[in-house]
């Protein structure tokens, strides 16, 4: 009896492993086909513009509002700690570095997964369940080209833009709190920041991070939609999976990228 349950457990483990490898394989083929498959559509740019609007512009409000608040909170916390050591003019440096290196890319990617990623999954899942994808295929249009590819590109382009904007409004919010409310001397706030922030090391590395996150989050979102069970239950499960997987992937990758970029090895 015990033997059987052990064997059964090993079997379940094997089945889960096969399922994971299968999903990875399918999603890779899916990605390659969507991005590099033959055949393009004449109105590709128009499709891309429409998706940039849906994915990028519509995510702006939440990104900007969160950015300002996070910058303000960073500034308040930083001030109350640095104040004890009499170096409150380092607040600018702290806010800018935190935002550029970590919070900008990471928080934007997390918000993006919640706002745009889940919407992408639900939209594509819905198209699948209402047979719009099959219908496209029957009309002789490859849904990977018409539906999936523009959404992927829109995600790749939007997220780095959003992350950059997030950092900028965050720094602005931080400056507002530090300079206008807490009375940090404005000149040293900015000069301190400018002395410590390096364009190549901090700004560009942050952008590279958000490009990587954009790739992963959009890929997960679009694939989950395309691969979901075409039922309302299946769509809601796929949407949840998008947010969970994308968030975990972002946080995990962030650690690896940080170690590679800022770690000393």
């Amino acid at each position, binding site marked *: 009896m015990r033997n059987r349950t052990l064997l059964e457990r090993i079997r379940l483990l094997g089945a889960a492993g096969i399922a994971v490898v299968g999903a990875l394989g399918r999603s890779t083929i899916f990605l390659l086909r969507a991005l590099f498959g033959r055949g393009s559509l004449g109105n590709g740019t*128009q499709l891309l*513009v*429409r998706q*940039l*609007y849906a994915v*990028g*512009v519509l995510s*702006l409000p939440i990104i900007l509002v969160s950015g300002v608040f996070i910058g303000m909170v960073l500034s308040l916390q930083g001030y109350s700690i640095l104040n004890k*050591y*009499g*170096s409150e*003019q*380092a607040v600018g440096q702290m806010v*800018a570095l935190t935002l*550029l290196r970590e919070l900008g890319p990471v928080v934007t990617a997390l918000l993006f997964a919640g706002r745009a990623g889940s919407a992408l999954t639900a939209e594509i899942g819905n198209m699948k369940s209402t047979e719009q994808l099959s219908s496209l295929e029957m009309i002789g249009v490859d849904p990977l080209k018409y539906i999936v590819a523009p959404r992927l590109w829109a995600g790749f*382009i*939007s997220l*780095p*833009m*959003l992350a*950059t*904007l997030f*950092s*900028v409004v965050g*720094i602005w919010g931080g400056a507002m709190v530090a300079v206008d409310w807490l009375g940090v001397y404005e000149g*040293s706030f*900015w*000069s*301190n*920041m*400018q*002395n*410590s*922030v*390096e*364009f190549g090391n*901090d*700004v560009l590395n942050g*952008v590279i991070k958000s490009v990587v996150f954009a790739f992963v989050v959009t890929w997960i979102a679009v694939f989950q939609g395309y691969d979901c069970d075409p039922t309302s239950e299946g769509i809601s499960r796929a949407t949840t999976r998008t947010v969970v997987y994308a968030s975990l992937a972002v946080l995990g990758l962030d650690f690896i990228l940080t170690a590679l970029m800022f770690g000393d090895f």
Partner: protein
Amino acid sequence: MQTRTLEIGVGLFLLAGLLALLLLALRVSGLSVSGNTETYKLYANFDNIAGLTVRAKVTMAGVTIGKVTAIDLDRDRYTGRVTMELEKKVDNLPVDSTASILTAGLLGEKYIGISVGGDEELLKDRGTIRDTQSSLVLEDLIGKFLLNSVSKDSK
């Protein structure tokens, strides 16, 4: 018409994104477009540069006139050699000017302050400032303070 507003929205979005990157480059990381303003090099040897970093400011009377571009060890003299790039228009520094490593606030960033000497002769490109004052090292200060109080006690 609907596509038009959509396209305008996307256009503004992309523009804002690029502008934000530019802002980060110029305002936040202090990268200057006019980075090619003419400069000249000066060297200064310090006994201890502790804490001074490349890209630190070089100031005179509180006004930034250049930055540190390199820090290395002068092998023969066992001192830290700091390379500075100063703006060309500030070309009237006497040879006996003093360079000191200063700290903004108690624990703030380190920078180099230059105070003017009185000599007729002026520093040239690739010249060296002889008179230097090293960084304030907190450990030494505390050490001295302790030593002082000990010697007072023993009296």
